[in-house]
């Protein structure tokens, strides 16, 4: 973020917005595709100039290459462009493609520049694409409908809001955000919420990294001096939860002694209540009182003690459903601020981050514990060294870039991409570290027996078969809480019709579970190479009369 004048890039097929911005919003610098210095409105050649802004996706990317320090993109939604200048899209109707071209440009920008703030400008009264844009983590909407159409003041206020929000977002730290839009959105929301005193509700499947987010992001960003403590409510017997959270006084029950609870110990800091859905009903009431009054009472005492604790509650279960079923208090649920909840995406929804996560997990896995010892032993035996201990590369022409570089074949990597990862990052951690340890141990044995020359010792291929077996084993594990496949049997005229009907149900359910990814469908239903089988799966899917789901919110 520049500390000087913010830089805006306008993307619009015409020049109507540009004129308004240049005339009425002169407090900013406008990124152009021109190499001349100075604002456009002082340029003697401004009449008829087409370099003032970007007119399509190609020009947008060109402008961003020229000026990587753009602060905000102002993006029109409807573009009247010839077909060859439109961004790639699955939509067949030319009229719809033009009408929603801004969304396609936005999707492309989100892949290439996931954190670049974008303001959508549209005069559409009904924003049919609102959910799409939200999914793409658009910072704000300028719904230039009604009185706001071409309103420079409204646009300026919106830009300022986006800029102010961006200032709040500091460096990423240790937490791996990756490049996906969902994580970019989570990052912004987490930083904003961290600076408020409100309790935070963290949602996400098991293994997605909720605790890491709380410890590595929210706690440091809240600038609290006290400690960060975690209580795993799934691991505590129900009878001990209250004593653990609120503390005990001597004589409260047999064997009880004076002991501060987690709330008191987290005074001035942050307390993460993991698996909040497991909190017993009677303790839920006490917790609600503690949140509302800022005081806790030890078991066996009557005088409450003030505590200043930032509360984060995490769960992978559906708390709203628990409320409906009477297992969770509605008032406590509301107090946990569910409308501002943070949702950590599942690994399969951020699969583009796989290479970064694999490298990070291996580096972390070999930095401590027995793995670090094994690595040190290998480095001594193979006489290898490098600036970094561990690196990962994918591809046939792998090159060693660290003391030990693990090479993953493209086929293995493809298989990993297609895997469902129901255990999320935790499962990925186990798979890659197990595979790497096996590869390292095997090579160590080879080095010790003199079979590997030192020129090859830095590059350790992870056998494709090893990864394949680890993933297959994981596929056999049905994670707790996952839905089994159920089929509805309806009598049919022939056995053939019956089997076709059942097959269609299996395909449809698998397709839904795999979020429309045919490679993943193939990996789950067919033996062999998933990439090659994806085409067969898709063909069969079509033969069964099933329809490929269209991209979100393009229904009209």
């Amino acid at each position, binding site marked *: 973020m520049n500390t000087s004048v913010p830089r805006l890039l306008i993307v619009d097929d015409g020049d109507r917005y540009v004129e308004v911005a240049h005339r009425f919003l002169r407090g900013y610098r406008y990124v152009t595709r021109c190499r001349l210095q100075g604002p456009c409105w002082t340029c003697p050649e401004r009449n008829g100039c087409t370099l003032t802004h970007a007119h399509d996706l190609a020009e947008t990317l060109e402008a961003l290459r020229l000026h990587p320090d753009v602060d905000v993109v102002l993006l029109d939604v409807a*573009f009247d462009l010839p077909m060859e200048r439109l961004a790639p899209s699955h939509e067949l109707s030319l009229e719809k493609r033009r009408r929603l071209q801004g969304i396609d440009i936005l999707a492309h920008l989100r892949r290439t520049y996931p954190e670049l703030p974008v303001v959508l400008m549209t005069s559409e*009264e009904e924003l049919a694409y609102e959910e799409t844009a939200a999914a793409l983590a658009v910072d704000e909407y300028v719904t230039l409908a009604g009185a706001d159409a*071409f309103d420079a003041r409204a646009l300026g206020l919106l830009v300022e809001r986006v800029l102010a929000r961006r200032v709040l977002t500091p460096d990423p730290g240790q937490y791996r955000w990756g490049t996906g839009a969902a994580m970019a959105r989570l990052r912004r929301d987490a930083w904003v919420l961290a600076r408020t005193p409100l309790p935070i509700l963290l949602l996400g499947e098991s293994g997605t990294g909720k605790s890491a987010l709380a410890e590595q992001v929210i706690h440091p960003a809240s600038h609290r001096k006290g400690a960060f403590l975690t209580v795993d409510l799934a691991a505590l017997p129900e009878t001990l939860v209250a004593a653990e959270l609120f503390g005990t006084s001597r004589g409260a029950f047999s064997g009880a002694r004076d002991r501060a609870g987690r709330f008191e110990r987290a005074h001035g800091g942050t307390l993460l209540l993991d698996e909040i859905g497991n909190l017993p009903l009677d303790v839920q009431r006490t917790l609600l009182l503690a949140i509302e009054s800022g005081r806790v009472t030890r078991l066996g005492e009557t005088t409450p003690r003030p505590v200043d604790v930032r509360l984060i509650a995490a769960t992978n279960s559906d708390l709203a459903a628990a409320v409906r079923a009477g297992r969770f208090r509605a008032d406590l649920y509301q107090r946990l601020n569910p409308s501002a909840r943070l949702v950590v995406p599942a690994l399969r929804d951020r699969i583009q981050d796989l290479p970064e996560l694999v490298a990070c997990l291996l580096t972390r896995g070999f930095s401590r514990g027995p793995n670090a010892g094994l690595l040190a032993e290998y480095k001594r035996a193979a006489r290898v060294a490098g600036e970094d201990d561990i690196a990962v590369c994918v591809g046939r022409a792998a090159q060693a870039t660290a003391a030990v570089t693990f090479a993953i074949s493209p086929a293995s990597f493809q298989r990993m991409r297609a895997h469902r990862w129901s255990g999320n990052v935790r499962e990925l951690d186990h798979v890659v570290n197990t595979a790497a340890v096996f590869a390292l141990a095997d090579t160590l044995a080879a080095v010790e027996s003199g079979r590997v020359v030192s020129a090859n010792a830095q590059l350790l291929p992870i056998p494709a078969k090893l990864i394949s077996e680890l993933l297959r084993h994981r596929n056999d594990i049905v994670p707790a809480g996952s839905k089994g496949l159920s089929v509805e049997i309806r009598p049919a005229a022939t056995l053939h019709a019956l089997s076709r009907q059942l097959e269609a149900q299996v395909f449809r359910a698998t397709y839904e579970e795999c979020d429309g990814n045919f490679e993943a469908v193939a990996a789950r239903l067919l033996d062999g190479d998933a990439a090659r089988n994806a085409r067969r799966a898709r063909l069969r899917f079509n033969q069964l009369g099933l329809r490929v789901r269209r991209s979100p919110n393009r229904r009209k």
Partner: protein
Amino acid sequence: MLARSVWCWQGVMPERDPSSTAEARRLAARLVHDVGKQVARTARNVGDTCWTPEAAGMMARDLYALPTGRASAVFGRLAGTTVGARPLLRQVRALLVEIDDLERAVLAGEPSALIRAAHAARAVEEILRAHARALSEGDP
């Protein structure tokens, strides 16, 4: 923006029955987008006393030289024969006639003409939005 798309839409879209409710709503939205919003672009951002030559030139383009043509002509092309049946559209047509009558004075930068034209432009947008709202709320 879709302002320049009028020609291509007219080229590919078949004639539709403007008396049907859905088509009337669609037409109302087009009028807001292609006429109302466009004519008021500069007028909404300039107060009555802040007319610089640059702003006056911008408004003149909004009124008499939109990418699709003169605002009154765009309105006439889109609204066609439906104007007679709809009082709000008749008001808009009258305002656009007034704007056209002011053309010479607006191009000359006469302050009183600029102010009157800006008022009329803002009124055009407001009325067209009111017309679209009424149709979307079920008023035939």
